[in-house]
């Protein structure tokens, strides 16, 4: 799990072009949206693409995204549970 978390941090930084942010700046339990990383609605859609592209996981209902993308840890948990 911790390995996946570290990998995800790097992937999120790359996919969302968070150039000035380093993996160690991201607390895996902190909310990804709202304050903090300054992510917006396009980033949320971009995370859906990340899951599909890197993990083959398709999110059919964007509304599910809220829970899945709450934090890096929630993402990692979802990937572990759903990876084919």
């Amino acid at each position, binding site marked *: 799990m911790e390995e996946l978390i570290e990998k995800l941090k790097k992937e999120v930084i790359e996919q969302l072009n968070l150039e000035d942010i380093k993996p160690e700046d991201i607390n895996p339990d902190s909310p990804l949206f709202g304050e903090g990383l300054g992510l*917006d*609605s*396009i980033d949320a*859609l971009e995370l*859906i*693409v990340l899951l599909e592209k890197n993990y083959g996981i398709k999110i059919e209902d*964007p509304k599910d995204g809220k829970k899945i993308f709450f934090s890096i840890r929630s993402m990692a948990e979802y990937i572990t549970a759903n990876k084919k």
Partner: protein
Amino acid sequence: MGYRTQITMKQTYIYEDNIISSLGFTTLENIESIRANAIGIRITDDPLLYPRPVPLSKVDPAALETRFNAICEQHKRSVAPDSFTRLEKLLITSIREVIHRDDLNPYHPKTLLILSTTKGNIDLLEERYKAKFNHKRLYLWELARIVQTFFGFVNTPVIISNACISGVLALITASRYIQSGTYDDVVVAGGDIVSEFVIAGFQSFQALSPDPCKPFDQNRSGLSLGEAAGAIHLSSRKPVGNSRMVTLAGGATTNDANHISGPSRTGQELSLAMDRALQQAGIDASALNYIAAHGTATAYNDEMEAKAIALSKAEQVPVSSQKGYWGHTLGAAGIIESAVAVASMRNNQLYRSAGFETPGVTIPLNILTEHRDAEVDQVLKSASGFGGCNAAVVFKKI
């Protein structure tokens, strides 16, 4: 704030117009289809466009070929129909209709062509077209040049590519040129095709509805894409005849300054564009007989528009989105939807907002649920798009 009284400004009369969409090849054919409640959006299974079936509104390819071939045959020079791209064919066929009926002289130094498109010949990025068409055709000025040359317009066309407000902005720009006396006649033409490029993009935005779009409806679930072309001839010359003439009486654009894809949360900026257009036209919102809304059927757009309409104190005015008939036609939208609004004025008829059943925005609007006869003298057309842009234009009978 005050606007300078523009005593010397000329009127902008609306002459002939044309709509090419899934519902027909002339404005009349389109209006007849709308009257008959025809919906042009169909679930389309075309692997060249999208891996899965998707609702689209497409112009009948065979009928377009027939019409375009006939135009080429009548052309003074010898032109090969298959040397033109799909969008070029659509635009030329649409402009031809308008020029032909009005007997407009494209060679006149005070005649201008304005082109409105968001993506131009974007399909030429696809492998299947690479050998056939020069890469240069991807440039909007080359597309415009081809259309210009076909008809022989002497002036270099003005090209407007401002997302989904392109068509309305092109009409506003035309009227400004006419009012200031820069040009006497302007043909505003706009179009976009449905392409793999655009479908994939909107799909990645999760913005496409699985069913034909339902603007302003509670069960709306996104937009449908459509392809269309339209042309409107605007002129400073008063048309002959006794009936009252439709004019373009005001128009403005604004920016949300909020987000590049999400619309304003308040609708204030669209409302400002509407207020300015009304002020220039010298009428109150309460005097409007119809609002042709943008109405893409995405959750946020329709809500923002409802707020803007209420802020401009126009929530009692009959309103519709025409996108339930032919989807979002991007660079053509502002032009063909204005052409329907003008037809409403000429026919004194309002047409229902297709796809709408149950109110789905937080502010009650007077959405047209059926076609009906009505005195239609003053109309507002609005548009909003990515990049936070908004535009509104007012048509008035004088």
